[in-house]
């Protein structure tokens, strides 16, 4: 790779790449900019790009009128709760499959993945009715349960691919050193797998945060996370661009930042380790 690239070529590619990158990012940028405009400026024609009177009033209005922070908190509880619960169930399972593989391990993994392919709409009705009958509709608990279950296969798979990279000899060494199974998992495996567990956590928080089928169908006002909160801007409030933008910016900002940190793990997690 030690080859001089002609500067002119590099300039050309740089301009092209930045142009495409900015075009793709533009809707997000535009949303963020609009969130700082007044409503009048937001629909002014021709639209102003940077030279307008910056204001924060949209953010305060959104919080006051629709209690943004309650929905934000719902999103946090639901996404973190379902991920942590999922990890607790998945770590032992992934340990089993990575370090004590049997003849059927591969089939079990495949089967777990196949549950992910069940289209949610196919099971929406029974889940909806069951939740209605046991009082889980529009509760955070209900959503934590559902999101744990739909993301469990991904969590198991991600952990499995990370655990596979830990040499089994180290766990055997621990066994020779007198560690019980519990010691082995707590003192040896988990600390060694911290990077893998952290990226699994990150990716699943992102997936759960953005999940928009179950969260829309199983919540009303009380437990609605940000996905459902934003959907309520569908109409007619959606025509108040500045407020819509402020609400949208607040809904995506935390996860956008988390996501940028986890790009690499994202590839691995979402392709079940097939692309690294």
């Amino acid at each position, binding site marked *: 790779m030690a080859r001089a690239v002609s500067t002119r070529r590099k300039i050309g590619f740089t301009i092209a790449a930045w142009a495409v*990158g900015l075009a793709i990012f533009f809707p997000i940028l535009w949303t963020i900019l609009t969130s700082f405009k007044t409503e009048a400026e937001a629909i002014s*024609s021709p639209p102003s790009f940077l030279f307008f009177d910056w204001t924060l009033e949209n953010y305060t209005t959104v919080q006051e009128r629709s209690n943004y922070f309650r929905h934000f908190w719902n999103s946090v509880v639901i996404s973190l709760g379902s991920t942590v619960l999922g990890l607790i169930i998945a770590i032992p399972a992934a340990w*089993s499959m990575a370090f004590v593989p049997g003849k059927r391990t591969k089939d079990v993994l495949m089967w777990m993945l196949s*549950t992910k392919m069940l289209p949610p709409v196919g*099971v929406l009705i029974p889940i909806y009715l069951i939740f209605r009958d046991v009082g889980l509709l529009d509760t955070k608990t209900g959503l934590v349960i559902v999101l744990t279950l739909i993301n469990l296969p991904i969590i198991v798979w991600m952990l499995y691919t990370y655990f596979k990279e830990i040499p089994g000899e180290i766990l055997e060494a621990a066994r020779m050193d007198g560690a019980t199974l519990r010691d082995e998992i707590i003192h040896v495996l988990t600390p060694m797998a911290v990077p893998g567990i952290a990226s699994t956590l990150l990716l699943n928080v992102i997936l759960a945060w*953005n999940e928009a089928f179950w969260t829309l169908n199983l919540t009303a006002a009380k437990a609605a996370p940000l996905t459902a909160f*934003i959907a309520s801007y569908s109409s007619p409030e959606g025509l108040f661009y500045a407020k819509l933008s402020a609400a949208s910016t607040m809904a995506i900002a935390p996860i956008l930042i988390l996501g940028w940190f986890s790009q690499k793990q994202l590839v691995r997690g979402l392709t079940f380790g097939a692309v690294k």
Partner: protein
Amino acid sequence: MATQHSRSAARIMISPAVVLLLAWMIVPLALTIYFSLLRYNLLMPGTERFVGLLNYKLFFNNPAFFTALINTLLLVGGVLIITVVGGILLAILLDQPIWGQGIVRILVIAPFFVMPTVSALVWKNMFMNPVSGLFAEFSKAVGLAPFDFLSQAPLASIIGIVSWQWLPFATLILLTAIQSLDSEQMEAAEMDGASALSRFWYITLPHLSRAITVVILIQTIFLLSVFAEILVTTNGGPGNASTNLTYLVYARSLLNFDVGGGSAGGVVAIILANIVAIFLMRMIGKNLDA
């Protein structure tokens, strides 16, 4: 490679995950199939009765079903073509020596982290709105009549929005795959006198084939269930012009309260997804060995 002791421990530790997923799969599935054989409307409680395959017959005879089926296929196919072709081109572009590669990467990947309801609303109102959206402003500026995307071309507009969300995913995975290509292989091909185009055709593309398959299959799972984007932008309309299977079942059961009919649709959706899933499992299964 283990002892009896560790094998039985393994069995115990894997069981919570297996039991939960088994329950999650079997219970609702069985209920869906059961409901699909009933006349069951939430507005008329107490009138449930067994009707055999009537719900399926009604579902298939309903013209909305075929529209939804075709819309589903168009949506999945359209988004796949746009994201895979665009993803390959973008990945190649980003793999070139450029200044600020890390920042461009961050810009390109961003839409993937935007929740579906937000991206649908932003596109619908701030870009595609025929009166005050940015596209309308642009048309006016160049002297054209504004185009009402969501009523004139609802499905194409939704394909556009969904493609915007998934293009980053395809790009990121294909870029990762391209970067894992052994540079010596490229140099060898260059020594052998292969042109840039034939290097792409004979080396880069085959190297990407596995990543491309993974992208197609994984996106398909998610694209079959596109829901929020439709709910927020068009509500499946005008008419059924942008209704896919997922949305049709939702509308049947939760808007019309027809649990029986909705369940029949759900079963059909499951069968369709399974056809796709079979290919996906084969593919990932192969990669497990590799």
